[in-house]
């Protein structure tokens, strides 16, 4: 059986807000990153021409390599956003729920 204290936390508005927001953030970030990766993988089979097409004026660097570096940059940016959110939003909520107002 769940203890009364646990039931209280599960029913706590702040806890529910923490869970919902964090879940939305994590899964939407993941969807973006994994979606881009899947698109890259599928394009290399079904639309290799798109990835091989050069971008820019000198016509050398292909889309696929730009996309690869863009996904790396995107991963880094989303990481920074997640850490910022966690420090400024999730963690204060966690402290508030865990141990009351201390």
């Amino acid at each position, binding site marked *: 059986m769940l203890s009364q204290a646990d039931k209280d936390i599960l029913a706590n508005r702040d*806890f529910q807000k923490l869970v919902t927001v964090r879940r939305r953030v994590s899964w939407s970030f993941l969807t973006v990153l994994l979606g881009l990766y899947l698109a890259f993988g599928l394009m*290399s*089979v079904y639309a290799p021409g798109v990835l091989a097409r050069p971008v820019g004026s000198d016509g050398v660097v292909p889309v*696929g390599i730009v996309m690869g570096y863009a996904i790396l940059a995107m991963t880094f940016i989303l990481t920074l956003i997640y850490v910022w959110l966690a*420090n400024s939003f999730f963690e204060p909520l966690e402290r508030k729920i865990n141990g009351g107002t201390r």
Partner: protein
Amino acid sequence: MNVTAIIMFFLFVGITLAITIWASKRTKTRSDFYAAGKSIGGFQNGLAIAGDFMSAATFLGVTALVYSTGMDGMLFIIGGTLGWAVILLLVAERLRNLGQYTFSDVVAFRLERKPVRTMSAIGSLAVAIPYLLAQMVGAGALIQILFGLPYEVAVVLVGVLMTLYVMFGGMLATTWIQTIKAVLLLVGGTIIGFGVMSMMNFDFSELLTAAVKEHPKGPAILAPGVMFTDTITIISIGLAFVFGTAGLPHVLMRFFTVPNARQARRSVAYAIGFIGYFQSLIFIIGMGAVVYVTNNPEFLGPDGSLLGGSNMSAIHLSKVIGGDLFLGFISAVAFATILAVVSGLTLSAAAAVSHDLYANVMKDGNADRDTELRISRITTLVIGLATMALAILLEGENVAVLALIALAIAASVNFPVMFLSMYWSKFTTRGALAGGYAGLATSLILVMLGPTVWVTLFGFEEAVFPYRYPTLFAMLANLVFAWWFSVSDKSERARSEAESFGTQWIQSEIGPVQEKI
């Protein structure tokens, strides 16, 4: 023989042995041995995590892949980085909130301890041991080329050092060794990348143009499809990287070396920075090797092939960049990389035996501290001796299959079981066991029937299972079995496990609940 390499190597060994002696004086409790006393900060742990990931396989292997296939290497470069986003967003903080020393602690949080721990310990060992063996065999061959040492001597050298580090220095020594090596590798990689770009006037287009001109496949390297052409293979590789990384026991163990979930989060964030940066360099290094190594007579054997194989492309490139001095530095860094990674793997295998199997399964969680520590040290010694012996027997064999098995099992046994236990309230002991063992069996069977074993090792004409990578099918097998055997589980145990999910959920979200005063 390269004098710089020898001096650098002895310097590294001297420093790491000094660290081991220092660490051994501070390693008294279980928490010290398995988790460095939970005293490591986020920044250092981030470096150590990046170090665990940046193995010789990444540095030399992925560079070699870019060197021979061009854009197809991007699949590995992106996948290797995205695995860490999965860890950050889904796993890291919860792991630290729920566990003590190994990821089995998390799986066994509300499920029945003995059977579930036995399974996840098998999962850990089934990843750590083949991976360790693959690294040892690769290390022997590499050191043979770099330092001119006989294969057996190289294997014994690596084996003895790794056993000493782990037995006496535990996680504290392993972490420091991994940190130092990560810094060395980042510096080395930066110098190579910077060297390549400066010879190309810092013009990326010029680098690619020159690479197309030198590469035997010409413009094909700037398009996908040189190596990977079917959807199933590409998806399996993607899954193995994205979810397999979060199933590597030696990586997961690192999250217990920090004091709290906040530091666990910071660790991955730093690790992503270092890994993403390093992966960006790999593509430049691979392309640079195409330009300066492919048709350079200095590095070609009498038959026109690259000396030491394509894995040596990064090493040869370092000689172009900085002569014998820098070649020596990079060779020593490659050696340090291997040593640090095998130490982490050995420690995770020892923890699976002493913490999961001995202390929790055999002794019901009431193991005596000193006995448990003694067992973990004996296990380390046994693993060290056994892998040395096996690595010597496997000289010259194709060990790619071992790494393949390790990553497939990480993605199809350890990760799904851990993930479901964290997120799915109806996940039961029965479901965990059915899913975990189904993933394990599917991985092993499909690798055996696939081209790597069935054709290359057994010599049959055609593979029964046509794909090299089994991850897609093995992961699906785990999920389907785990789902079915959980929802159809109507036992009393299943009911109480579902009920205690609430307590676990709270702890995974906000950490261990503090008593109100």
